[in-house]
């Protein structure tokens, strides 16, 4: 067609170098910075939730394994029975049980000392019927059925506690924490998706003229949706990186200060609750995954919103 030129060319020189493609959506028409901040805050909240859940879950797992490694035989004084002989017999039966590695018999004075925090030191508790304890260190999960039966027969005042009830309670608590964390993350993701949907609608309204021109020159809905998706993915990645990075920094700082406060009453309390307060590889990986999910959600929601709106315009 241009070979049949009839229009005068008033150009002196055209530059045939490669020309950079400008994004089709006018950047100024989209409230990009505000959206990046919203996405960053949402990612930060979701990451903090995930990290906290991970800390509690791993701390609870370590409590459980500690507890599971111990069992206790308690022998209550009973009239007519020789306490020392009962203790020795119970220890003998426990020693013979497969899975019991070592055992520690608490002497009468040691047992009395255990009561001191409740009863004080100035009281003569020699006359009180203080029960005696045998602490067993076990490997794996030994079968205590035979030991229980033997204890019932030979030492009827003895009870064996393998802490199963505690372990179950801790397991239930950790499970509840994980579920609560997942629910919070889902809510944060839904809130992010809604914010993106509103922002996309706003962006479409701001770019209405451009969308009309694109339609007139033969752009498909898919092409227009891709343009929006590309734009919002960039915003999502930026926000996700900021929020996720912020969360990682917060956990690192928490770990750092927790190690500094070690051996103080507050630090010990924290350590009892959250272990060493170190997030670990799994926690950091979760934060990265959340940031990526948020960015992908941003892109997908904007694409779907554009498709729906274009269908509406049609």
């Amino acid at each position, binding site marked *: 067609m241009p070979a049949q030129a009839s229009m005068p*060319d008033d150009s002196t020189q055209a530059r045939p170098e*490669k020309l950079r493609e400008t994004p089709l959506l006018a950047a100024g028409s989209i409230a990009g910075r505000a959206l990046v901040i919203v996405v960053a805050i949402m990612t930060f909240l979701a990451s903090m939730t995930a990290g906290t859940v991970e800390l509690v879950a791993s701390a609870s797992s370590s409590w459980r394994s500690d507890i599971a490694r111990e069992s206790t035989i308690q022998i209550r004084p009973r009239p007519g029975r020789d306490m020392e002989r009962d203790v020795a017999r119970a220890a003998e039966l426990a020693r013979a049980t497969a899975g019991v590695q070592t055992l520690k018999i608490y002497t009468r004075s040691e047992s009395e000392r255990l009561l001191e925090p409740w009863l004080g030191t100035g009281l003569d508790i020699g006359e009180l019927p203080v029960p005696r304890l045998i602490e067993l260190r076990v490997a794996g999960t030994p079968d205590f059925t035979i030991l229980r039966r033997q204890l019932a027969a030979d030492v009827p005042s003895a009870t064996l506690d393998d802490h199963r009830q505690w372990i179950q309670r801790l397991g239930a608590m950790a499970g509840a924490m994980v579920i609560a964390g997942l629910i919070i993350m889902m809510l944060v993701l839904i809130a992010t998706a809604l914010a993106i949907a509103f922002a996309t609608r706003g962006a479409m309204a701001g770019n209405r003229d451009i969308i009309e021109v694109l339609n007139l020159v033969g752009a*498909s809905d898919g092409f227009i949706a891709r343009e929006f998706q590309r734009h919002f993915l960039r915003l999502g990645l930026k926000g996700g990186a900021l929020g996720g990075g912020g969360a990682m920094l917060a956990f690192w700082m928490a770990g750092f200060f927790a190690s500094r406060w070690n051996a103080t009453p507050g630090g010990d309390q924290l350590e009892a609750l959250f272990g060493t307060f170190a997030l670990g590889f799994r926690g950091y990986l979760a934060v990265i995954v959340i940031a990526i999910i948020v960015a992908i959600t941003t892109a997908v929601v904007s694409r779907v919103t554009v498709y729906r709106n274009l269908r509406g315009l049609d």
Partner: protein
Amino acid sequence: MVRFENVSLRYGLGAEILRDLSFEIKPSSFQFLSGPSGSGKTTLLKMMLATLKPTRGLVHLFGQDVGRMDKDSVTLLRRKVGIVLQDFRLLDHLTTYENVALPLRVQGQSEDRYRPEVIELLRWVGLGDRLHVPPSILSGGEKQRAAIARALIVRPELLLADEPTGNVDPVLAKRLVRLFMELNKLGTAIVMATHDWALMDQIPERRLILTEGRMRIEG
């Protein structure tokens, strides 16, 4: 190529803007679309681009009934039709080069492939030294030529031009009409909306004249 059968159009519950239009536009034909301001010329052009659907009657574009076309078919149809709008509709945040390349870009063509063609066309319409400037600093005539170049870059089978001479001086207007006639000789069907009777009197081509929503055909 384009066939209207007893076509009427109204917006909402208002009066009919176009009434019982029946006409045909054949491949490689040239016609003026004329009539006073507000007679429905732009509306008719929009119907030829499947932007508006008739409230009564049948519109066939490239053998397809517009009323039954889905979105994808409309998109494909628009790739065969070039349109020059009265207000140009150039995108201000893109350069002149990018505006003209837009129809090829939305079809997914790579810039390496279309770059020489776009630059050649821009030189042809006299905008070879305005490649990198945004439309906001182009003169009215330059904008007009950029809009025409954008419509021509896909080598359309049908070119719809809405008042393309409305914003230019008589000399440039004549040159633009000559340009359209040359394109027509190369096989593009042209529908040029204008109410410049003096211009039409110089060119003995078919005239579709709209008056109060009805059409009269001359020539």
